[in-house]
């Protein structure tokens, strides 16, 4: 997988993950172009399209479009499943996820994605182990935060 984008129906980017190093300017251009193409497609249309030398697989969940770019020999259907799995993970984590969850906790969404995919490849095919990893990492984070006293925070301790 080359990259994954999440954007809203209004054309606002909500998440982007690039698995190959791309210059900032090219990223912007590609995102704009892709959003235009995908948003223009009608709901009855199939989820695949050929774009430049890539294949684009997208799926719409409520007001959010999940959009992946894969290479020529990659399997479109499994990519759809990847998207679906990611949505399921978000759903489990946030509890019936909505667009606002992703907007306000965008770093969390990234953490989940990073646990699920790495370098564009699926890291773990089991939902459970991904969620477990996330939970434990969060736990660690809370441990970090909780024992801080007010004094500590003020830098006096």
């Amino acid at each position, binding site marked *: 997988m080359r990259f994954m984008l999440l954007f809203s129906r209004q054309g606002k980017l909500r998440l982007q993950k690039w698995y190959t190093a*791309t210059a900032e300017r090219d990223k912007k251009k590609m995102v704009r172009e892709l959003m235009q193409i995908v948003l223009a497609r009608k709901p009855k249309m199939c989820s695949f399209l050929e774009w430049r030398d890539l294949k684009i697989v997208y799926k719409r969940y409520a007001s959010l479009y999940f959009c992946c770019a894969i290479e020529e020999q990659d*399997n479109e259907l499994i990519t759809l499943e990847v998207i679906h799995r990611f949505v399921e993970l978000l759903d489990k984590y946030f509890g019936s996820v909505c667009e606002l969850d992703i907007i306000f906790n965008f770093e969390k969404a990234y953490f989940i994605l990073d646990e699920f995919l790495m370098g564009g490849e699926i890291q773990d095919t089991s939902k459970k182990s991904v969620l477990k990893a996330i939970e434990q*990492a969060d736990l660690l984070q809370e441990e970090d935060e909780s024992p801080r006293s007010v004094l500590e925070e003020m830098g006096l301790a």
Partner: protein
Amino acid sequence: MALKIVKGSIDRMFDKNLQDLVRGIRNHKEDEAKYISTCIDEIKQELKQDNIAVKANAVCKLTYLQMLGYDVSWAAFNIVEVMSSSKFTYKRIGYLAASQCFHENTDVIMLTTNQIRKDLSSPNQYDTGVALTGLSCFVTPDLARDLANDIMTLMSHTKPYIRKKAVLIMYKVFLKYPESLRPAFPRLKEKLEDPDPGVQSAAVNVICELARRNPKNYLSLAPLFFKLMTSSTNNWVLIKIIKLFGALTPLEPRLGKKLIEPLTNLIHSTSAMSLLYECVNTVIAGQYSCSVGRIKSHLLCVQKLRILIEDSDQNLKYLGLLAMSKILKTHPKSVQSHKDLILQCLDDKDESIRLRALDLLYGMVSKKNLMEIVKKLMIHVDKAEGTTYRDELLTKIIDICSQSNYQYITNFEWYISILVELTRLEGTRHGHLIASQMLDVAIRVKAIRVFAVAQMATLLDNAHLLTGNMQRNGICEVLYAAAWICGEFSEHLENPVQTLEAMLRPKVATLPGHIQAVYVQNAAKLFATILKNQEGNTDSTAAQETSQMMIDRLPLFVQSANLEVQERASCILQLVKYIQKLQQKDVEVAEEVSALFAGELNPVAPKAQKKVPVPEGLDLDAWINEPPSESESEDEQPKAIFTKEEPKHSRPRHTEVDEKELARRREARKQEQANNPFYIKASPSSQKVYQEAPGVEHIPVVQIDLSVPLKVPGLPMSDQYVKLEEERRQKERAEKKKKEKKKRKEKRSGRGKKHDSGPESEEDITPAHVVDIVTEEMPEVAQEDQNHLPSPYLCRVKICICMFCLCRPLADSEKLPVRSHRAAGAPKSPAEDGEAENATPQEPKKKSSKEKRDKKKDKERDRKVRLRCWKHLPPSGHKSDSRSTPSEGRTAARRQLRRCNLMTQCFTFLVFPFSRKVCDIQGNLQDGSQVVVSVIFENKSDSFLKSMEFNVLDSLNSKLQRPEGSGPHDGLTVPFQLPPGVSNEARFVFTVQSIVMPQKLKGTLTFIVKNEDSSTHEKLDFKLHFTCTSYLITTPCYSDAFAKLLESGDLKSSSVRLEGVNMPFHHLLARICFHHHFSVVERINSCASMYSRSIQGHHVCLLVKTTVSIDAKCDEPTLLGNVLDEIKQTFSQC
């Protein structure tokens, strides 16, 4: 101090966190940019503070802003600071920010190496995990090199969570630092059998991706993967494994046979569509040798695809069609039976599905079903909404009909009717496409002209229908074709006066200029024809009336704003006035007038101009006149009417360029071309005489079927042709049956079963009238220009991970660089301990010279492997070439093979430490004493090669031609330099006195190897082998000339027996033809006569018998002896 800190913390309470920022942005919809710029200012303030929590918060906000498209590269250093925080919370944010914002050119990445190394070895697995995840996004070649060893250690970590990540990231590391692949591979292989399914699937993933880049190295893993495939139930993993096998099977055909069973099982059993699709794709792509299994599995695939296409899910439908189009390439028959289904898809709501179906139809047409398919498409054209799809349909219809030179059209009247029907489409952009088809058909299919002219006349008559709103309407281009056809073939017109009248209507003046111009010109042609027709009549008033009409109507065009129209009109107007004068004096003018337009125009092949050799002394680049300094207005350029017409090169208009400047530029250009490996230079020796000159064949024009009404009132309907065609075919079939019955009666044999008229096959369908498709003209002097063949060598070299052989034991030099100084307190894993101590710590950049040598050796070994492959090429090249005509062979592979055939005379491979040379010796036909040697230099090293000098020690017999004024021992400078990994070709001319003996010449190549810091002078010795075969030139010979030659008695004979050759006779012949430049004169049963000619005109005749003996005759016995020896040698090698 403390106060300052307290103050900072209190400030912090009022800081925005991420949620505040997001909320703020949402509340400032109107002045978002302004709001964000104040936010960025705040963030800058926050980053200046010492408190890491504040910084992390700021970095988090920046990451969000980065996604919105704001530049945050200025904060890169702060991101590194946050990354190096000891607290997981901040570290996580830091790495996230880095993975989103860093790229290869971010300079602070260099600073992160040690931090990442520390995190990788952290006792906390989540620290390590976060570092690995981040690294996977921004790994650079430097990072990959420095950290490869650490990551490799992590592949054996105790926690599967880390192992999994480490395995996956190794793929990125391999890409950035290919040298790490060999040392890491054994461990990667181990992970295929890891107890943890996650790690296992990660390893499968990585190996599958690697194998897609270079399958060869992973063949040895096939049994292991086979086991995994039959045991695994995880669909994600199965898909990857199947994909991997898809990459492996082309290399190992036996694998395909073995795979068929499990694959078909999976296809039958799986419920997961993605897996099914992957299996089907692999079966389609695999070139399975076992024929029974293949047919079965193919049928199964097509069946399954049909189910996919019939599915209501658009996605499956789309993929089904996509896969079908892949099958179509190899097994068109099996797809054709699903025509109904594919036609149904044209009705689909989804445009992308319809377009896919259209693509499929293109490949599915045959003579039998063309009319039917096009009829369906025409219905869709009428129904289609949206001009883009309709235009797509239109172009597809034309593509389908015109493909491979109108191969599938049996009835051109039908095709013309289709084209005429298409003109009724409103608002299409493709008027010019229809027009060019009309012209093409009318010109090239002589038999159709009568019909076409009648149709075009109707079109002209009804022009008002087409030109509703002209300016926007592309369809009026059709009138261009109509006018031209009516004018050019006006002798076929039923009522020329009426057509002339139609062409001179005042409304015409509203058409675009270039069309009007054609109207005017062709009106003149028509006028000439009318005069000719009317001259015979006793009553001359009719002719005079026509002249009067011309004189009345033409002034309208004389006033045209378009210069072209104006000029033609005024010219013709004067001509007609003069004719009128003569007519009034009762002078017969028709002959002279029609002489103006006499002669037939023949189509010319698009490449014809290229084939005409440029006469000596003509420099096409030189200006004839210096270009005018001021630019002219070009806005009235007429649109190209022929689709194939190349875009006009608008020459950049230089303002006054003086001679010196021109010369300087030319020199610069030459220099550039010399250094550009993709520029193929002209050679003095492209001496293949163009042998087949397809002339215009004049097949007698056959009468048109009279059952078709020639005069169609209004616009015709193509449908009737479908019916007519059906009837015609039935009639034909019935007649055939009758004939067959007769035959059978005559024969009265029981074997007639074979002839039973089963389903109509493609060959049975004869065209309605034999159409003579005029072959396009080619100049006969044309030369086969070798320079146009892209050189296969130029694109062959790519240095990537593929080049490393994985089966070889590790060389010392390949061990991964181990950190030279350790991060404090980093725990060492015991397994790694030994290795770290064994390898001397060293900076990777400073490699000892010994190591360098080792590297070179490795590379050489790779090269040898590749060279061997190459040597196998020529024979297969011949096979493929003998089947395809020169105009075919578009694919890269074929081109490559073809090139081999054209040029192979004698390949000598020389392995150089720095460069590889392939040379090819070829006789010069025009000069009996010249031989051209083409040498391909390929730089396989990592250094820049320059100042190459090529020198050969001349012998008495053969001399390297050197430029005038240079001494007999001077080398020739190779006119280019070679950057690493690039190859280029140079040609050297030798003069040879006697060609009867083979020779070896010794030579040297000197060059300068330029590295980053040093440059050295290097020398290579090589030998050039001039075989006698390389002096022979394939020359065709007719059997009677051959017989005369043998009778003449001037030839000495000799014979040879080839021992131990057991190949089919035609292979044997092909081999002799290919390797020794003979051509077969005649083949009778068990023997064949062959002929070739040397560059000095010696005849060499062979009689080859199936008993593998060769009797040979030649007027030069020594030459003959040597050639026979060489032939013998060729066959002893195989």
